[in-house]
């Protein structure tokens, strides 16, 4: 086991997402990946893995206004299999 610290997190409006993947490449810590579920419009939307810094890069590049960005008062530590 190892730990990953998240200084921030995001809320994602998956129904508004059109699956363009701009957020995936824009994310500096690379914690966004495309999910396999389809939303009602038939698009894939991103998933968040631990390690978000709350930098808001995803929000800046999202054409569909899907992201709401948060910074934790105290960083959140997630344990993951190494």
């Amino acid at each position, binding site marked *: 086991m190892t730990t990953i610290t998240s200084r921030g997190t995001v*809320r994602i409006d998956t129904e508004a997402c*059109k699956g*363009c993947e701009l957020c995936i490449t824009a994310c500096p810590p690379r914690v966004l990946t495309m999910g396999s579920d389809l939303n009602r419009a038939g698009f894939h939307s991103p998933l968040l*893995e*631990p390690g978000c810094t709350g930098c808001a*890069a995803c929000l800046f590049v999202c*054409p569909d206004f899907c992201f709401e*960005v948060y910074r934790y008062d105290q960083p959140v530590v997630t344990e993951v299999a190494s």
Partner: protein
Amino acid sequence: MPTLDTSTEPSGARRVGDLTPDLLLTGEHHLCPGCGEPLALRCLLDTITDLEVTTQTIGVVGIGCYTAFTTSIDVDLVQALHGRAPSVATGIKRMRPDAVVFTLQGDGDMVNEGLQEVLHTAARGEAVTCVLLNNGVFGETGGHMTATTVLGQRTKNTIDGREAEYHGYPILIGDLISRLEGASYVARGSVHNAGAVARTKKMVRRALESQRRGDGFSFVEVLTMCPTGWFIPTGESPEYLHETLGAVHVMGELKVDGRVKTTDELHTENVARQREVEARLAAGGLDG
């Protein structure tokens, strides 16, 4: 790797960025996946909010994909004809000198159909801010060549790429405008990555501030992705923008306080800027 719940508001956290700009009545829109126009629009609308000029702002919009936003932008708007927004903005500004007046046009609108409008408005030094969304294609008709399409760029009617001998050369509109005496602030930004968006937002802010000071004409060109019109995957469009349009339409503040910068100066600034953005992202954010 586990995935986290992103459907609800987290506890023990403060919100640092909204879903939808305050000046949009709804975030829902029907522009294509990966379109850069909503990003540029966000820069503009958030800046109007930040500058606290909401109850004195009037916009004029041309005809393009972004026109779909006219019903959801919570700004007093006048719908103009293709190419004609700068003249309409002129009439508005002359009758309401205290208003903050902006135009929103695409490259087909501004640089093809209405080139003389924006040039004359700049030359007159009208205290309005013209915003150009430049993706090098007519997005709304399906990806046809415009006056800003760069050499080699594939469009529906330059299917093997734009050739100078056959299709002529692109117009670098920002550069052209920066040479006009009446233009006080001219900048060219982009929305191909988060750093570029943050920088573009700053340009819009400086342009609107210049207008409010009464310095003269201000202009922000924003390079935007059009993966549909470029016929490439959405994920590849930011890099395509940077390598193709961005290589010709060089980004940066082309004219500040009446001084025109050289292309070398812009390149130097761009390299420094890129380092700064990388450092800030590594440090945890662009909004600070």
